[in-house]
């Protein structure tokens, strides 16, 4: 046996920079393509706009990343509805008044977290497959929304929230981007530098082994679903700041794109592999793609087909699974 080789552990805690860099390169390529086909697309103002739009998806996808990493078929299809519900609660409570902003956000996030808790309990204690648990939850939350609003969402964003989201800070960048950066760093830290994060990866990679290593797998999973719903709720609140008014289906459309952003970012749906940096870039890629498709005047049908094809190309660049034969 040769002497044990311990290489300089240069990337002990950073996992696979590959997909992130690649996704970033693709985002840049899309922007350049956009500028070529519709000049103005790569202007500073438009880039900032795109980043701002990406932020909503990016924040919602934080939780989606966590849940997917947790494995066991982990996925949260209810993020869109939960985001909508949080925005509805928030807008009704703050009702356009800065004074009520904090309680409004707190209440909205608490309700979101409670929904996440139910998802988590269903997935762990009752062993309902996450896909179906969170799918059923969509109907439940929709019912709660109708009951809460009577079918008419009302209320308005507090000015402070709007100026946080839309207002320009340094470099003419909206506050939302700083907020997203901070949340993103928090997510990365949580995943890479905390016992929760490492437990999460362990549970995702091999739940039995995790339990037999003393990890409380159920608790970890429940926390994952609570975080997912909470970040979704936060995304909904931020979206409220952007639109200022609220609607019954405000954030519903984020359901599958949030999963796509995670996968494009290199996280494996099988669980146990991935990270948030990739997801953030994935959210940007998807948003730039939508922006590009919007400015191309190719008609709804063509746009839809191109959207699908480009997604496939993106995925085939790195969203691939291992091969069976090495």
């Amino acid at each position, binding site marked *: 046996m040769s002497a044990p080789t311990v290489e300089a552990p240069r990337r002990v805690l950073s996992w696979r920079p590959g997909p992130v860099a690649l996704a970033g390169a693709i985002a840049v390529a899309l922007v350049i393509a956009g500028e070529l086909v519709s000049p103005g697309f790569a202007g500073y103002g438009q880039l900032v706009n795109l980043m701002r739009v990406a932020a909503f998806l990016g924040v919602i996808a934080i939780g989606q990343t966590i849940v997917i990493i947790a494995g066991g078929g982990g996925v949260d299809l209810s993020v869109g509805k939960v985001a909508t519900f949080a925005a509805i609660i928030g807008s009704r409570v703050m009702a356009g008044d800065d004074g009520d902003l904090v309680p409004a956000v707190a209440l909205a996030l608490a309700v979101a977290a409670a929904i996440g808790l139910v998802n988590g309990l269903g997935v762990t204690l009752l062993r309902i497959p996450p896909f179906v648990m969170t799918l059923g939850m969509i109907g439940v939350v929709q019912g709660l929304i109708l009951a809460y609003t009577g079918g008419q969402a009302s209320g308005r964003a507090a000015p402070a929230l709007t100026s946080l989201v839309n207002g320009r800070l340094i470099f003419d960048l909206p506050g939302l981007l700083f907020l997203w950066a901070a949340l993103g760093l928090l997510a990365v830290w949580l995943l890479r530098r905390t016992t929760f994060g490492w437990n999460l990866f362990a549970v995702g990679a091999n739940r039995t082994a995790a339990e037999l290593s003393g990890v409380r797998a159920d608790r970890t999973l429940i926390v994952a679903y609570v975080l997912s719903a909470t970040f979704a709720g936060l995304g909904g609140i931020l979206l409220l700041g952007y639109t200022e008014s609220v609607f019954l289906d405000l954030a519903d459309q984020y359901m599958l794109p949030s999963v796509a952003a995670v996968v494009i970012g290199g996280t494996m749906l099988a669980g146990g592999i991935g990270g948030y940096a990739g997801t953030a870039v994935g959210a940007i890629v998807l948003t730039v793609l939508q922006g590009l498709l919007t400015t191309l005047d190719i008609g709804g049908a063509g746009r839809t087909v191109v959207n699908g094809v480009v997604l496939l190309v993106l995925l085939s660049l790195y969203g691939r*699974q291992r091969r069976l034969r090495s």
Partner: protein
Amino acid sequence: MNVLREIRLPGVQLSGTATVAMLVAAVVVNSALQPNFWSAYALTSNFATFVPLVAIAVGQTIVVLSGGIDLSLGAQVTLSAVAAVQLLDGRLDRLPLAVAAALGVGLACGALNGLVVALLRLQPIVATFATSFVFSGLALVVLPTPGGSVPIEVTTVYRDAVLGVPVALLAILGLALLWWVLRRHRVLRHVYAVGGDPEAAYASLVPVARTRVLAYVLGGLFAALAALAVLANTGSGDPFVGNELTLASVAAVVLGGTALAGGRGGAGGSILGAIVLALVTNIVFFADVPTTYRQLVNGAVIILALALAGIPALQKRRPAA
């Protein structure tokens, strides 16, 4: 070692009895709430309603068994349906052509999915989400606005009964029979093996890539059959008609006892699961649940059904602490 096997279980897998029990309960409750549940019209119309979801659920089952999932099945239904209805143009003599077109489209869509999932090795949830855009976009190209018509004979026969047995029920039995036949074929055995453990299957000489492609192709085949049922049920073409069947098909698969992780389960359960799903909607209606709460109750019932099935697993798993 059974303890650890349970810890390892990725989710509930309903037993056949649980699914059947659910169906019986749904039928009993529904017939109690709906006075004319057993009338000829109610029976034929109920079964007519079930067929599209049943068909697509069988297709989804095969894909799920292979370890995948197909979020484009609904879009495939749409594309197959609009292709068929365009050719059909209201003429009965064109029916064989239209059926062939629907099947051809379904198989081609399945082949594309198989290609991207098995050969390019893209992750199925997102890959098929992407192909669903391709299929729905193409559906709009084929049929830019709703139109086209199905010969009246087709829609009439679909709503008819033969010797008191609804034609739509016969269609469901036909789907079950098709499944029963497939189940006895080597390809389905390989589908189970690949879904159960791809690496082991590969080392055991199973043509993994080809099997995966075939699973998606079979998914497409059943999507095409669903499309034909949709056409018979609706009587005309619509470029959005099937898209929402997708998620319901996954719910039906799980209610039917197939593990989303792959390799375990079967389409028999999914057929029952699809019927249960449709009956729950009826029950909620006939129980006069206020409209505000219908979706809530619907979602909660599905979660509860799965939860009840999960409780035995819970009890087995841990000692009373």
